[in-house]
């Protein structure tokens, strides 16, 4: 599958974090991006747009990332969700993984880690 054919939902309350992730991904192609600014927005946008891949921050307003993962997974058990977070102890991360997160990247975001995740996802499709 080509990167141009997929939709990526980036959910982070920081406009900067969203921009950085988008900028990195755009170095390898131009997927359709959807942005969400909090956990509830991520759930709503997921249902509206059915993205192929989701990047999600853990600490966000309204609903935090771990709750958003659970709700998205309940709605679509096949959702591919990657945690992108600087904040979080192992306990929080464990909750996120148990809720169904597929992968995680740690901020400050490492470009290679993001590219690797997107490329692996494309290979698997």
């Amino acid at each position, binding site marked *: 599958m080509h990167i141009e054919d997929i939709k990526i939902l980036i959910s982070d309350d920081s*406009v*900067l974090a969203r921009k950085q992730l988008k900028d990195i991904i755009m170095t390898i192609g131009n997927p359709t991006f959807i942005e969400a600014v909090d956990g509830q927005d991520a759930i709503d946008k997921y249902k509206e747009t059915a993205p192929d891949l989701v990047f999600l921050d853990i600490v966000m307003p309204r609903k935090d990332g771990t709750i958003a993962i659970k709700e998205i997974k309940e709605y679509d058990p096949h959702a591919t969700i990657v945690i992108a977070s*600087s904040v979080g*102890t192992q306990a929080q991360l464990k909750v996120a*993984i148990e809720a169904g997160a597929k992968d995680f990247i740690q901020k400050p975001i490492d470009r290679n880690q993001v590219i690797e995740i997107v490329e692996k996802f494309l290979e698997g499709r």
Partner: protein
Amino acid sequence: MYSQFFGNFLLINKYVTKEQLFDAMQKQSNDRIKLGTLAISEGLMTAEEVDEVIIQQTHEDKKFGELAIEQGFLTNDEVLQLLKAQVPSFLQLAQTFVDEEILTNQDLANIITEYRSESEIYDLDFTSDDQKDTIEKLFDNFFVMSETPLSHYGRMYLELLFNNFIRFIGEDFTPLDGSAITEFAPEKCVCQKVIGDYSVVTYIDMDEDTAVEFASRYVGDQFSEYDEYVSASLEDFINLHNGVFIVNVSNEDNTDLELDIPYGVKDPLLIFDKKAYLFPVMYSFGVVNIILEVIKIETEDSEV
């Protein structure tokens, strides 16, 4: 490099695979940490000594501590000290890998040393001795300002903050004398609350031009005016700093603190109900004001 999550550290250094890590994180139980793992972590026993005691345990029905004392690896006091020690949360994960035979005790000893040297970044590790002296003096002067010593967490918090300034913004700053304040008129200001046994609200404030330069340095991109990206960069900085702080606290003594969402301050005047301290930092491009409003502290005899 930032190794906030021990799991991420293991992964990046290829000590374990992603599958092994996820598996261990799910298995990771609240079982009591083993004395041998703790002894390695505290530097009281080598991995070889721990392995020797474990082998001996297979043919003598005695506790690890008893055998370690008999062998002269630990003293009675050291065993008691280990039994009372607070367990850093990352050790639990580390032990799961040993239990699963993915890592040996020797691997564990090496990895712990490496992880600690990379992640415990709140010790002052400034490149310039002058800078270090200035900041040490600032901490010493704190007593004069507040009539109470800086608490353990307060010192850890400020040391990490100055280190993060150096890492992300640059070393060309001078910390000015701090002062106790009851109110403050912010310009471009972001704030975030740390909640838990050490509860503090941190404000980072500066004028518009300083904010543009601060954000440019932080992101590594040249901003030309104060816009939403500049404002988000300040929030990102404070969030990153506090994120590292709570993970360091969790790693050090298994105390879990939480973070609120960072936000831009809109009030023209901040009035502090609790004790608040202003630490201005003068950069070559402007002054950055750090304000700590201390809500709760783990000990009664210190105030920040």
